[in-house]
Structures are given as C-alpha cells and as structure tokens.
C-alpha cells in the first residue's frame, strides 16, 4: 500500500485515503480538434516501465487533486506537487535526474 504526501495538507497519506486518477499533464482537446489529437487526448496513455507522472486525489482527506512522480517498477516516489501546473517543478525533475539519469517521459527528459 503506497504512501504519498498530500501537497495541500502536507500529511503522509495511505493509499486507502487516496483515489488514483490516471495520467498527469494531459492537454485537453475540444471541439474543432482533429480526430488524431482528440483520440490521443482521450485514449492514448503512457504505460512506462519506470518514471511516471500521475494524478491522485486526497479523496478521504482535503479533497484536493495532486500530482506524483513515481517509478512504476520500484514504486520510489520522487515527489508530489499541486495539480495547478502544466509541468512538474524543476526540483522534482532534478530529483529524478539524480537517481535515473537519462530518464524521459513524453516530451520531457533529463
């Protein structure tokens, strides 16, 4: 059972307090978008063996959504951060680079 720090409350939460909410940093495509863009937004998801950015909600706590940077293999957590951002904070990218040099995720990389 994972533990993640809620960046809103600042508490370490057990997975049972949280709700997993899928991949982070999706860019929404709405009316007028191409079929390809819209399909990508709606269905195409990363499925990495390694570094991943994902959404969680502190559903049985403050109710806030947040993001987590996590390794899907070792379950190491490199940090959590508020959802109101288009990309991870630099210190989290640095933390990943320190431990997983050469990492990449979508268009992001070391």
């Amino acid at each position, binding site marked *: 059972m*994972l*533990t993640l720090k809620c960046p809103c409350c600042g508490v370490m939460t057990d997975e049972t307090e949280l709700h997993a909410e899928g991949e982070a940093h999706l860019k929404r495509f709405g009316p007028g978008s191409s*079929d390809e863009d819209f399909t990508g937004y709606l269905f195409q998801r990363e499925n990495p063996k390694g570094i991943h950015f994902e959404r969680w909600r502190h*559903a049985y706590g403050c109710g806030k959504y947040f993001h987590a940077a996590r390794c899907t293999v*070792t*379950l*190491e957590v490199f940090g959590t951060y508020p959802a109101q951002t288009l990309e991870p904070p630099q210190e989290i990218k640095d933390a990943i680079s320190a431990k997983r040099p050469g990492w990449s995720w979508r268009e992001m990389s070391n």
Partner: protein
Amino acid sequence: MSHRLPQGGRLIDRRKPRTFRFNNRAMRGMKGDTLASALLASDQMLVGRSFKYHRPRGIVASGAEEPNALVNLGTGDRFEPNQRATTTELFDGLVAKSQNHFPSLDFDIGVVNDALSKFLSAGFYYKMFIHPRPFWKHVYEPFIRQSAGLGKAPDAEARDVDTYEHMYAHVDVLVVGGGVAGLQEARAAGEAGKEVLLIEQTAHWGGRAPVDGGSVGGGPVDKWVDETVAALAEMPNVRMRLRMMGAGVYDHSYALGYERVSDHQPGNDAPRHRLWRIRATEIVTATGAIERPLSFAGNDIPGVMLASAVRDYVVNYGVTPGRRVAIATNNDDAYRTALALADAGVGVPVIVDARSEGGPLAEAARDRGIRVEFGMGVGRLLGGKRVTGVGICRMDSDGSALHEIACDAVAMSGGWSPVVHLWSHCGGKLNWNETRAHFAPDPARAPTGADGQAFVRAAGAASGALTLPEILDGAEDWEEAPLSPVWQMPAQAEKALQGKSWLDFQNDVKVSDVRLAAREGYESVEHTKRYTTLGMATDQGKLSNINGLAVLADALHKDIPAVGTTTFRPPYTPISMGAIAGEARGALFQPIRRTPMHDWHDAHGADWEPVGAWRRPYAFVQNGEDVHDAVMREVTNTRQNLGLLDASTLGKLIVKGPDAGRFLDMMYTNMMSTLKPGRCRYGLMCSENGFLIDDGVVARIDDETFLCHTTTGGADRIHGHMEDWLQCEWWDWKVWVVNATEQFAQVGVVGPNARKVLEKLGGMEVSADALPFMAWADGEIGGFRARVYRISFSGELSYEIAVDAGQGQAFWDALMEAGEEFGVMPYGTEALHIMRAEKGFIMIGDETDGTVIPQDLGLNWAISKKKEDYLGKRAQERDHMTDPDRWQLVGLETLDGSVLPDGAYAVEAGWNDNDQRRVQGRVTSTYHSPTLGRGIAMGLVRHGPDRMGEVLDFPVPGGTTVRAKIVDPVFYDREGEKQNV
C-alpha cells in the same frame, strides 16, 4: 508407537491435564501441549488422508510448515476446517476431526485412487477431463466437486460468534520472529531508542535455540533468551506480542500482523484474532528456517517426521513418535535429534547418513553407541498406516538391494531452507548458497520503499546464518561439517521408487510427477507448479518447493538457481476471514446513510432498497398487502389524490462564484448561464467521452449561485467530477462547489391535491401564477422555512420542498396530518420509477449504462446548439457517436399486455459469428403500469423512432417469445397538461 515419555517437556505442565476429543474419542493431554503433541502422546499417529490418493497421513512437522495434520476444529458456530494441529494450542474441551476421508479415517474408500495412481499423474486434470465433452457436466464436474477441498465447509446457517478487530501500528522497527536473532535485533533497536514492535507467531520466545542448545557467554542459550526477554519487557519503547505472525510485507514498508489472541482459550471476552496494519520504517525478518524432508520411497508413511520436529516433541512436550526412531540425514544437525532421543531413553537403531563422513556431532552420536551408516540412504520404508521398518541401501545405488532394520518412526533431514517469504513478498531477491544448498536473501537486492532505500533486512537463520555462533556474539555450539545436497534417495533410485517418493504430502505430488512434467516440456517452475499442483496446497509448499524445483532442475539438466523459485505471496500461513473483516460485519459492514425521515419510514412499513449507501423505501407496505400491491396502490393514489416522496437523498451541489454560469455551461450539455434566478432547468451531464453520466434539475439561486440536483447515487461522484475540472483544468475560474446534500430534507408533494395541502398549511403563494412550472421560491410553509421547487418527475402537479434537515420529520408529519383529508399516502422508489416510465422520463442507470449518449435517448432538445464547447461535445462528433445505426430510445408495448423481462433482447434474422441470434434492441426499463393496466417498457432499438408500430420478438427464459410493438416512449399525458396546472 508414539507416546509420552516419563519425564521431560519444557513447555508442558504435567500437573494440569487437559481433555479433548479427536474423531469422537476422548483423549488427554497437558497444559502447554499443542493438539499435535497431545495426539502423538495418545499414539494417534494417523491424522488425515492426502488430497488425491487418500493415503494415510501422519504428523510431519511441529510448526507452521505442517502439511498433513489439518483438522476440522470446533463445532457449530465455532467450526473451522483446515486448522493445523501443530499450531493449535490444546485447551480443555477441544473438539477436532480428521479430514478428507469416507467413511472413516481408518477405512477410506477413496484410497482406491492410490491403486489408480498411474492414471492420476501430473496434469491429469488437464488430460482427463477434456473428452468426451458432455462428460464434463454430468460426470467430471460432480466428481471434482465431491473430491475438492480437504476440510468441510462450515454449515451454511452457522454464524461466527467470535469478534475480530483491526489494530494499527506505526513503528520505527518491526521485528518479525522472536527467536534469538529477533530478540537480539529488538534489543539493539530498543537500546538505540527506536519504537519497536517485536512479534512471534508461537506462544514462546526463543525459537529453536532452547531445543537445539548451545551457549552464550558461557551460559546456556535459554538463559540468554530469558534475560533478553526480561530486558526488552523493561523498555517502554518496545512492544512485544506472542501468537502474532508476520503475515505479509507490502509496498512502502507496510506489513500485516495476524494475532491469534484467544484461539487457545475460546469463549473468553477477548477478540479471537486481530489483524495488525503496520507501517514500519524498517522491517527485520527474523523468521528462521524450515527443515527439508528427504525424498525416498515411502517418506509419506505416518511415523516419518522432520528430524527437528522429533527433537521438538521430545524436548518441548516429552513426547516421542516411536520407541525405535531411525534417522536419515545428509547433514550434522539431525544428529542433535539422535542425541535428544538418546538423552530421553528412546532407541535409535540407526543413523543413515548420505555423506561419507560427518562432524563432531556425528562423533558424539557414535560415542553414545548409536550405529551410524555413512554413504547410505533409505531405499524404501516399510509399513502402511505406520512405519514398521527402514530398508537401507548404498546412497549411490538404485535402491534395489536393501538391508532392513526394524523401527517405528523415522526422523529425516535434508538440510535447512531460510524462511524467505516475507523478504520476498515485496520484491526482495535471493541468492543460491551452494554450500548449504538453499536460497537466502541477497542484502544487495532488498525490497525498496518510497525513498528508494531498502526497508527489509533479514536476520538470523532467515538470512542464511544457520548456526548460533553466526547469529549471536559470544555464542558457542557444535561445529558442523558441511551437508551434501540430496534431492532423491538413493541417488539412482529406480522409477518405481520415484513414484513413491513424495515431494508435496498434502497435494500428493511425487518425484515422478515433476520428472514427467519436465519430460512433457514444462520448463518454467511456475508452470510446473500449476501442472503438477506442487506447492499449491494450504501449506503453499513450505516443505516441498525447494525439493521439487531441485528435482525439476535435475530433470532439465539445469542449475537450481537457473530454474528459480515460485513467487512467494502473502499471507505466510492462511489467516481467518474474520480477521480480514475485523469489525466490519453485520450492521457495521458499511455505514448506512439515513434521511431525517428514515425512522418514520421504518415504522410505516418501508420495504427498504439500498441506493448507494442510502436506504430508501421501495414501497410502504400496509396490512394485508404484498409489495407489488403496495406499489400499485401508491401509483394510483398519487395520480388520483396525493403522494409524498422522501427525496432527501437527491444530491444537492451548490455551485457559486463569478464564473459559476460559465463553468456549468461546460458541465452540462444545456446552456445554464442563461437560466434566470428563480427558474429551474433540467440538465444532462456527460463525461469527456460523450456518455451520459448524470442528470437533474438545476435551480439558479442568484447571479452567482446555482443549486445542482444530482441522482441519489451520483452526488459524491459528480462533486468529484466538478472538483476535478475546477482544480486541474480551469483552476483560474472563480467557482466554489459545496456538497450540501445532507443539509436539507426534501419532500416531493405530488398529485392533483398537492397545491391544496400546501395552501392549507399556508405561508407562501404556491399558485400557478406565483409559482409556475419550473420555477422555485423561498418562503415558509406551515411555519417551516422552505425552498419550493415546482418540478415534476411523475407528470403530476408536483412541488419538491426542501427544509432544514433538522426539520424534516416535523415537516413530513405536518404534511401527513394536513394531507389526510386529501388522501395523502407516502410512496416509494418503485412507484417513482413507474410514474416516470409512464411519462417516458429516462433514469440514469436504467436507460444509461456508460455507453449511451443523450442523442440515443431523444434528448437533443437538452443539448445546446449555441455552445462552442461542453464536456462530451467533441466526443459526440466522433464517427461512432453519429452513426445512424445506433440504438435509440422507444416505448414498447407487449401485444398481450404482459411485462417484458428486464434486459430482454429483440432478435432479428440470422446468427452472428458466435452462433448467437442477431439482436436489434433491448429493454432498459419495464413495469406493470396500474395507470394503463398493462405492461409498459422502454428500450433502445436500432432505427427505433422511425419504426413506430413495428412488432419485435423478445425471446425470454423458458423458450417462449414475447412480442411487443414499438410505440412513443411517453405513455401518459403526452401534452403535459397534468403537471402544468
């Protein structure tokens, strides 16, 4: 024969006898006995039958690894199957029965399987039951059901009378195992000031050390154990728990402990079991090691035991499995058993040692006058229901030339395997130790936690440190000569002997089965496990796995580490369902949400229906009625007079802020920003996939405030959905959402007399002019502060009135009293459903199932054409969503007036690729309408709205077909004259 020795037994109290029953026979044991030691003391060597061949089975081990001695324990509401006799502490009045035999343990007709064992070899399930196919249903399946499972299932009417609870612990260090290694680890952590939880699965500290001997700092090791336990008990930062097993290790240093609080004294006030949910910074697995059996022909005959178990029974319980106990070994450790037996005055006719020489322990045995045969093995054991002798042969022979020696028990030792289960549960890796022929934890590849650091450490025998001096500083013990790995005894055993050499005693897997699997192409140890069922019994292969994979490696001409182990999964030994459930049973299984009028409903005949966590009255049943009668009466009375509906469960989300209108325009398919304060609008909500997810009436309270009603089950989900978009997509929009569902009691006042009763109560204007259809107003009714919505889900004149939750019951009482002269009756959810279906209103969850879009349901009028965007709009433009062949909503009227079965499919000509009838539609809602006096239904039908009047065939269970005509889905008051008065 097995019996109690005249003296000895460090764990028993001979002055305190205990009586118990085994297979209806009264027996006696002593305080401190396990059920296994007490059975052995009573010469009950035969304790069960094996799973497949129904072979006689005796006690093999003395602890959690026991594969054979599983019993049905207790009676009635305390009956439980598959309980290990070796870990069941004896108490007065214990009742146990042996398992898997018919008609009796001594005479079991299932033993015929043993004679047929040639046909029941590895994979027989897969080979045997394939053909002929009809045999599966009528022959094979009944046979398998009859023979599946060892123990008896508890009686269906039995109810567990014990209590269980969950405990939570957050500690710096969790030490699993209270042997010398665990005690030493706990002490070191305790002295370093850490919060420590030390747990031990048995009722005693010290593990094997007090039995196996050795000294620490010049004193006996049991003295060191006592002193260390005393020192730990003095430390306020150390908690110690006996009878608590480390059941599993999970992600991010989570662990489960299973505490058997009162199994040894049932019926006391304590809970029976506790499940401990532990989060530890570090977990130390000091879980010891398990001795391996030797694979020789007849090694499953009752009387054959692990050498360490024999030693345990002699030293701990003063019990010996026989008068003449032969010993078979490939290592020095088993000689400790010979010495313990000799000390207790039990005869040891021979020690058969596969090696060419032993160490000082072997010398000591020889010095005691015990016959030691090096380079020899057991070729075949003699006996049936118990051992009568041992046939020994040269270790490097094929076992055909035997020399027989009389004995009535055999102690065997194939070396020791560290208990690596907890280390491995969460990803800890193992190394193969060639010298000791076992897998041990690789400290460089430990399980890692959230910070990427190792969080499990193995200590003592569990780490591969098998001898006392390796574990404790200043400890001394016999020096041990290396073992010689033995996976088959003798080394060149002929086929017939392999077919009688058991690997898995409970599941009847033999050396020959694993070799057969290898010949048939099984290379992966995981596949071989499932093909042969090796290690798949309730003991999960604690004794058999290493021996089995060694045989597989040999058959495949591979190294053992190249074959690898099967996956270790929690729990270490089975834990009770009660412990998993904890307090969550009966009324406490799930908290029930109750409306303010819940108790009134309960007192007035409510037939309850669960809706999410809520309970809603399905109908209010009066004297002499059945539920169907009540529903029909409620519909008719509401249509003709006056009905009251408790609508408090409907979700009420307050959406407020300068951007609230803009936000709701995105949430709903309709335009909500143009709604005027004081007005209501029915709205549809779609997911970004385009599918309809919820519906409800939105009321605009003021310029910046909306109140959004959701379905009963949807309130929390839709609240989360709104939060998701506000927090993660449009976080710059100024909107705040509050779930106010439980702040209000809401009552639907419905029917032709609805206005009359409200006017009688008085307080605010509710006329058609003052409060027209789809308007709302704040005011006072009968002295209650109220918000009145003029909305209708029934098609009748209808007001939904929200009052403060605390006033709900009083308001309900006032309506019932004032409504008496108008024929008031409460109605439940089924009447609600029927009335909405008569009106052709859709219901989320009936007409929708996650694949339906509003356009399928004829709801285009509720989809704004003016808006550039709303959630689901882009998806609804995709090919599949605009396909004219999508099934669409229609009404269905059976030709004979009967009620169509829910979910029935309309078939058309032809068959699909799966040999199923082609379908063209299905029923989504179906009821008997008392208003129309016939069955009515709604359904989704291909091109349905263009096919009015066509008749469809609905095959129904029983082989008949119901015919129904496609009609308009609005069955009642199409013009809406009734609701708009």
